[in-house]
């Protein structure tokens, strides 16, 4: 009995993984025990995702050993890892959106009767699992794609519960969830922990990590920093271990950048002015102006219509009602191409699907918008490309500083920086940032917030969308509150507290 508790469910020793141009993991040890929530901590590019992918068989390890319940294992496919009882819920949910909830939960393990799928059994079993997680309100027969990312994630967890996984890996599970959903998720996690499931938890939200985890392993630049009991490690020492800097440097980093408010008094023409903008099935009747040098924050719950507004401004979706004026002149934004020609840029919240050209290099990705604007015939000379890329790699601290690395091999935060740089090189007048700091560590996050400040100070208009109200309030001059697919309030951001905005969102008061 005692022996059982001492043997870790998963033990990884001296793991190394390299990609062309990148040493992702170097001599990393990791242990995971039954009935614990173990947080894997580190900045972007520290190797967290790579370690998880080594454990789940997505990447083959170059050297080192992995044992599961004392048995040495070699995972070369995700299937082998799953067979060993390791189940993963990724940051970007990897289920099939075109199948129903029940088909997703039981995919590949459908109960059978006389050789064919027992659909009644499928429904019953799905209901049971969902009920176990208190998710009864989800209709097992509905299409997965009709649910928000948050719900899809909970369905992914339901799937792992159904498998009876020994190890559950949650990679940034809370990045798309609102406070209620996080509470719901944590209840489920605690429940699973009590049932002796070993849970590996990755999150950039420090408070959540301290709330839920028992132990943590810290990585930095692909190397192991150490393994600690959560209660023994203060927040400040955790952060300094993650970024490898001492406390003073941190204190400076942590300071909220003070914003000098842009003037939008009478006589100034807004850069963009939307009146009654809307689209069937999306948002309706949006009135919103953004002045030069002003940061406007969009606050509201996930799915309230924030991204939809951004897409209308950028022409990613065509508006079918209302009008847009740019610098006082009426315009029709029919496509992203027209928006870009009017000096509007848009960083999508969905990096993988809507941002990255994964198989191309950092260089190609960084100059893509600029090149697309010039057209295919006028190639940006290699020398100019090199200069631009070097400039932005340095300015945004993109790591590795290798223009020829494939962008898919970079960590999430560094990918995000490249995507930001893609727009910055074109000097837009309005930059729409949809969740630019999601899934990014504090260091990079502060860098991006500071960058937003600087850009606005240089006269750029910025539409800033984030699920974190603190962040929206920190960077914005004005906050537009979205609720139920309509704009319900505009608040000038002087001494507004998170609670104030929450009250507006909750009450919908004008």
């Amino acid at each position: 009995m005692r022996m059982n508790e001492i043997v870790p469910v998963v033990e990884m020793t001296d793991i190394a993984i390299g990609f062309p141009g990148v040493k992702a993991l170097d001599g990393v040890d990791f242990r995971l025990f039954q009935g614990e929530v173990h947080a894997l901590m580190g900045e972007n590019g520290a190797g967290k995702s790579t370690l998880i992918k080594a454990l789940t068989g997505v990447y083959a390890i170059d050297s080192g050993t992995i044992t599961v319940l004392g048995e040495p294992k070699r995972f070369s496919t995700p299937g082998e890892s799953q067979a060993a009882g390791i189940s993963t819920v990724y940051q970007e949910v990897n289920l099939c959106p075109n199948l129903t909830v029940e088909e997703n939960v039981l995919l590949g393990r459908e109960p059978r009767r006389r050789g064919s799928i027992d659909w009644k059994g499928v429904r019953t079993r799905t209901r049971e699992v969902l009920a176990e997680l208190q998710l009864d309100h989800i209709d097992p027969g509905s299409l997965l794609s009709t649910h928000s990312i948050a719900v899809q994630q909970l369905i992914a967890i339901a799937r792992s519960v159904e498998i009876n996984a020994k190890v559950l890996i949650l990679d940034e599970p809370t990045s798309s969830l609102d406070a209620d959903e996080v509470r719901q998720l944590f209840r489920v996690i605690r429940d699973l922990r009590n049932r002796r499931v070993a849970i590996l938890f990755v999150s950039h939200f420090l408070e959540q990590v301290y709330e839920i985890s028992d132990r943590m392993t810290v990585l930095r630049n692909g190397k192991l920093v150490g393994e600690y009991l959560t209660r023994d490690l203060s927040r400040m020492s955790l952060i300094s271990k993650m970024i490898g800097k001492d406390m003073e440097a941190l204190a400076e980093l942590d300071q909220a950048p003070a914003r000098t408010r842009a003037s939008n008094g009478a006589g100034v023409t807004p850069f963009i002015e939307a009146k009654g903008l809307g689209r069937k099935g999306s948002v309706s009747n949006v009135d919103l102006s953004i002045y030069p040098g002003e940061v406007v924050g969009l606050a509201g719950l996930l799915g309230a219509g924030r991204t939809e507004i951004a897409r209308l401004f950028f022409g990613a979706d065509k508006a079918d009602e209302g009008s847009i004026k740019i610098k006082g002149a009426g315009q029709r934004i029919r496509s992203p191409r027209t928006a870009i020609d009017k000096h509007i840029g848009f960083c999508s919240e969905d990096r993988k699907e809507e941002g990255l050209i994964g198989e191309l290099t950092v260089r190609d990705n960084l100059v893509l918008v600029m090149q697309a604007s010039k057209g295919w015939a006028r190639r940006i000379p290699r020398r100019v490309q090199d200069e631009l890329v070097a400039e932005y790699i340095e300015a945004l601290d993109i790591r590795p500083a290798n223009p020829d690395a494939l962008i898919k091999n970079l960590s999430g935060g560094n990918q995000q920086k490249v995507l930001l740089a893609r727009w910055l090189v074109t000097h837009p007048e309005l930059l729409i940032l949809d969740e630019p700091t999601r899934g990014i560590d504090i260091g990079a996050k502060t860098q991006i917030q500071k960058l937003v400040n600087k850009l606005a100070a240089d006269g750029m208009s910025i539409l800033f969308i984030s699920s974190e109200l603190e962040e929206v309030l920190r960077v914005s001059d004005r906050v537009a509150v979205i609720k139920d697919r309509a704009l319900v309030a505009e608040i000038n951001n002087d001494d507004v507290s998170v609670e104030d905005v929450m009250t507006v969102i909750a009450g919908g008061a004008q």
Partner: protein
Amino acid sequence: MKSLLKHRLAWPVIALAALLLLNQVFKPDFMSLRMQDGHLYGSLIDIMRNGAPTILIALGMTLVIATRGIDLSVGAVVAIAGAASCAYIAASPEPGSPVTAATAVLIAVVAALALGVWNGFLVSTIGVQPIIATLVLMTAGRGVAQLITGGQIVSVSNDSYKSIGAGYLFTLPVSILITAAVFALAAVLTRRTALGTLIEAVGINPVASRLAGLRARNIIWIVYVFSAVCAAIAGLMISSNVTAADANNAGLYIEMDAILAVVIGGTSLAGGRYTLVGTVVGAFIIQTLTTTVYTLGIPPEVTLVFKALVVITVCLLQAPKARNLLSRLKAAPKPAAQEAAKEKVAI
């Protein structure tokens, strides 16, 4: 050596070299070239000349495939190009003059431009899936070609026209020179401009490309037009070589050879990164296979199976899964044995 093996072109090149060596073993004068009447002759020249139409079409196909598309209509375009030019020459008052030949070529190329625009229109503007969109022209195109020729095989006798597929210039067959020129044009067009990168961007992630302001429609149009023009040049070559247009059989199944050449060369059917050099190597492999069949004296009934085996081998060598399996088999020997092996290599 190891990094060389990891290069994406490594296996296609090795396969081609192996095939050529095999031929050399069975036919000692295989590699030899000889000069006769100021023309270069030899098996290698034959392979290049006979492979020219496939290479041309495969070049166009590579760019189409890189955008996540496919062009099944190339065989039909070959037939239409041959039919149009030969019908024009046959009906013209001066069927033997160079001007007539030049006009015929122009007619074929203009027809191909129109056909490429049609394919591009269906795919990029209407949004029809490429396989369906080009299937339309694949089936309808042969009908058009038959209409042009009136269902007959149209023979022509025009020396200028004949030189496209059977002539010589600077000691080399004209068809090889034309193919080399088109390859150079494609390479310059895609790599000296940004076209290549943008084609790859559209192929890798169309959604992100649109949000980056890329005019995917224009790019898709360009690749289908280029593919059709390549097919038309191939069609001219084929009909010129036999001085006749056969609407039924010219370029029959050539789309399959072209797609195969692209895939063997290392460009994924899923779109994205492409390699023109790989495609040329792939086309050479296919053509050399045909030659090898004759050299080895393989009976005709075994020919297709032999071809299939080689193609499967090359494709497997390129598949990441098969490669992993291979490297694991190689890694299997005990460390001591590996050390010994390393030492051997060092010597």
